[in-house]
C-alpha cells in the first residue's frame, strides 16, 4: 500500500496537501490543471521532492530516508528517459545493474525484454536513431526489467499520437500485470484515465484528492474537475 500520511508539498507559493492511501497493484490516473502539482506528487514518491511535512510510506515503511534509486519505484519522465550515448541494450541493462557489469544471463534477459516490447534486434541502436514510439517502448522495457512495485508515469507518451499512445498504455497494462505494480499515471486526457485506470486522483486547488473510481468521478465531476474539463 502506498500511503501519504498528512503530506504537505511546498515550494515558494506552491502548496499541495495529500492525505490518503492506495493499494498495491492499483492503477491510478492523476488528472488536473497545469501547475496544480501532478508532477510534484509523483516526484515526492520518486524521491526528488522532499515533503515539508508528513511522510510517504510504502507497505508501512517511510520512504523519506531512501535515495531515489533505492526506492521501490520506477519513474518515466516526460523526456530524457534514455541516455543518448548508450545503446538500447546498455540503457536497459542499467535497470538490472547500474554499474552495467551484466552476467550472460542478464544480457539474455535484456534481449528477451527487447523482444517482448517489439524491439527485437535493436539492442545495438542508440536513442537518437529511434522514433518516439520506440523510445517509449525501450523506457517501458527497462521498467519491466527493474520490476519495482510502483511505476510512475509522468506523461512519457504525451508526444505520441492516439494510436501509438493507446498501444503504449496497453503495454503499460501488460507490464503492470506481469510485475504486479501499482501504476500512477499523470494525464491530461480523460479518455486515458477511463481506458487505463480504475481509480483517478484529482489534483486541483492545492489538494491532491483521495482516489475515487474513475467512472464515478467523470459521471458527476466536482466543480474543480468540471472547470478543468470545460
Amino acid at each position, binding site marked *: 500500500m502506498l500511503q501519504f500520511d498528512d503530506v504537505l508539498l511546498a515550494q515558494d507559493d506552491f502548496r499541495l496537501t495529500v492525505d490518503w492511501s492506495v493499494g498495491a497493484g492499483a492503477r491510478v490516473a492523476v488528472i488536473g490543471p497545469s501547475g496544480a502539482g501532478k508532477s510534484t506528487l509523483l516526484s515526492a514518491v*520518486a*524521491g*526528488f521532492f522532499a515533503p515539508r511535512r508528513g511522510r510517504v510510506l510504502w507497505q508501512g515503511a517511510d520512504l523519506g530516508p531512501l*535515495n*531515489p*534509486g*533505492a526506492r521501490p*519505484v*520506477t*519513474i518515466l*519522465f516526460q*523526456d*530524457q*528517459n534514455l*541516455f*543518448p*550515448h*548508450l545503446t538500447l541494450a*546498455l540503457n536497459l541493462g*542499467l*535497470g538490472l545493474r*547500474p*554499474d*552495467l557489469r551484466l552476467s550472460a544471463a542478464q544480457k539474455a534477459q535484456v534481449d528477451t525484454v527487447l523482444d517482448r516490447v517489439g524491439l527485437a534486434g535493436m539492442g545495438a541502436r542508440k*536513442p*537518437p536513431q529511434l522514433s518516439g514510439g520506440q523510445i517509449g517502448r525501450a523506457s517501458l522495457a527497462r521498467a519491466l526489467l527493474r520490476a519495482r512495485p510502483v511505476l510512475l508515469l509522468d506523461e512519457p507518451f504525451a508526444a505520441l499520437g492516439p494510436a501509438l499512445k493507446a498501444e503504449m498504455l496497453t503495454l503499460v497494462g501488460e507490464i503492470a500485470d506481469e510485475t504486479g505494480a501499482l501504476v500512477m499515471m499523470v494525464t491530461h486526457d480523460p479518455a486515458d484515465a477511463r481506458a487505463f485506470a480504475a481509480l483517478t486522483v484529482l489534483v486541483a486547488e492545492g489538494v491532491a484528492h483521495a482516489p475515487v473510481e474513475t467512472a464515478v468521478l467523470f459521471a458527476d465531476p466536482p466543480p474543480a474537475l468540471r472547470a478543468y474539463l470545460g
Partner: protein
Amino acid sequence: MARGPVAVIGTGAAVCVAALVLLPLGAVLMRASTWPAFAPGDGQAVWFTLWQALVSAVVSCVLAVPVARALARRRFVGREVLITLMGAPFLLPTIVAVMGLIAVFGRSGLANQALAAVGVPPLSVYGAQGVILAHVFLNLPLAVRMVLQGWQAIPAERFRLAESLGFAPAQVTRHLEVPMLRAILPGAFAVIFVICLTSFAVALTLGGGPKATTVELAIYQAVRFDFDLGRAALLAGLQFALCALVAVLVWHVVTQAGFGAGLDRAPVLRAQGVGPLLADGLAIGGTAVFLLLPLGTIAVRGLPGLLELPDAVWAAAGRSVTVALASTGVTVATALALALRVSDARWGAGVIDAVALLPLATSGLVLGTGLFLLVQPWAAPSSLALPVTVAVNVAMSLPFVYRLLLPEARVLRADYGRLSESLGLQGISWLRLVAVPRLARPLGFGAGLAAALSMGDLGVIALFASDQTATLPLVVQRLMGAYRMDTAAGAALLLVVISFGLFWAFDWWGRRYATV
C-alpha cells in the same frame, strides 16, 4: 547521481587547491624580513596592467563572436583543421608566439615591409600596442573556441523550432544566440582579462620600461634582481586582490543558458544571402591569416635547425613531456571533481567555484617561490624544480579546464541528473557510464589545453632550474639568450610540435569518444 563519494572528493579537491594557492603566498610573506613597501612605479604598473588587460579582453571577445558564428554555420573543406589550428596560438608557448609576432610585425617583418611598399612609416611591435597585439593573438582563439562550443551546445531542436516558427535571423539572434552569448561571454571575458592581468612573458619581451610594465613583470624583477621577497609578496597580494575583485564581479554576471537537452543530432544553423557569406568569409579568412602567419614563419625558420638539435634539447623535451603529462592528469581529475561538485548546486557551491578560479588570481612566480620556501627545509631546490613546476602548472591550468567543464556539467545534471538518481546510478559507475562519456568533448579539450600549457610554461622554472632540470621552453630561452638563433628556432619548432601533438591527441580523443 553523485551523492556521497563524488561530492566528498570534490570538496577535498577544493581544500587542496585552496592550500596550494594560499600556503605559498603565506610562506613568501613570512619570509619577508621587513615590512614590505611599494617601489616607485608600482602604481603605474597597476594602471598599465588593468587597461591593457581590459582592451585585450574586449577586443578578443568582440572579434570572437563573428568568427565563432561563421565557423558554426559554415561547412567547408578544412573546417575541422582550421578549428584545431585556431586553438594553436593560445596553446603556443608564449616565447615562441612572441618570436612569430616579431617576425611578422617587427621592424623588418612582413607587415612593415608591406606598409613601407605603400609609403607608410613602420609600426613598432614593442610597448603597449605590442603587448595588446600579443594578448589578442594569444587569446582570441580561446574566445573563439569558447563561443563556438556555446553555439554547438544549442540543441538543433531549438534551431528547428525557430525555423518552424518562421523566425527572421534577428529573432534567432535574440532568442537563441544572445542568451547563449550572455552565458558564455562574461566567462570568456573574465578568463582572458585575468590571463592578461597576470601576463608575464609577453610583458617581459614586448613591454618593459615605466609605460609597459605589468604587475607580474614587477614581481619577477623584485624576485630576480632585488631578491626582495617582501615586495614580491606585496605585489602578489595586490594582484590577487585585483583578480579576485574581477572574479567576484563577473561571477554575478554569468548566467546559464538553459536550452534543455537535445538528442545529439547535428546542429542546423543556416544563413542565406551574399552579405552573410561575405561577412563569414572575411571573419574566417582574416582570422586565419592573422593567427596562422606568425605560426608559419616560425615553422619556416625552425625547420632547418630541427635536424641538428643537441642531445640536451632532446633530454629537456623528455622532461617537459613528463611534466606535462603529470600535470595534465592531476589537472583534469581535479577540475572534473570540482565541476561535478559545483554543478550539484548544494551548499558551498559558490565557495568551491571561487576556489577553483582562485589560481587565476595568483602569480605563478610567487606560487613557485612560495612552494620552494615551504619544502626547502626537507629537500634541495634543484631536485624539486620539476615537481614544483608540475604543481604550479596544475594550479595555472586548473581554472581553464574547470571553466570548460562546468557549463557542460550543469547541463549534464539538468538533463540526466534525475534519470541517473532514479536508476541508482552513482559513484564510480556514474562517472564511468554517464559523466565521462557525456563530458568527453570538454574533457579531451581541457586535457589538451592543460598538456600544452604545461609543455610551454616558462615561469617559475626559470628562477630555479639547473641544467639537469631545464625544460624545453627554458632551453629555448637560454639558446636565444646565447644568440644561437638557428638552434633556438629548431628547439622552438620541436616545442611547438610536441605541444600541439599533445593537444591534438587529447582533443581528438574527446571528440571521437563523444561521437561514438
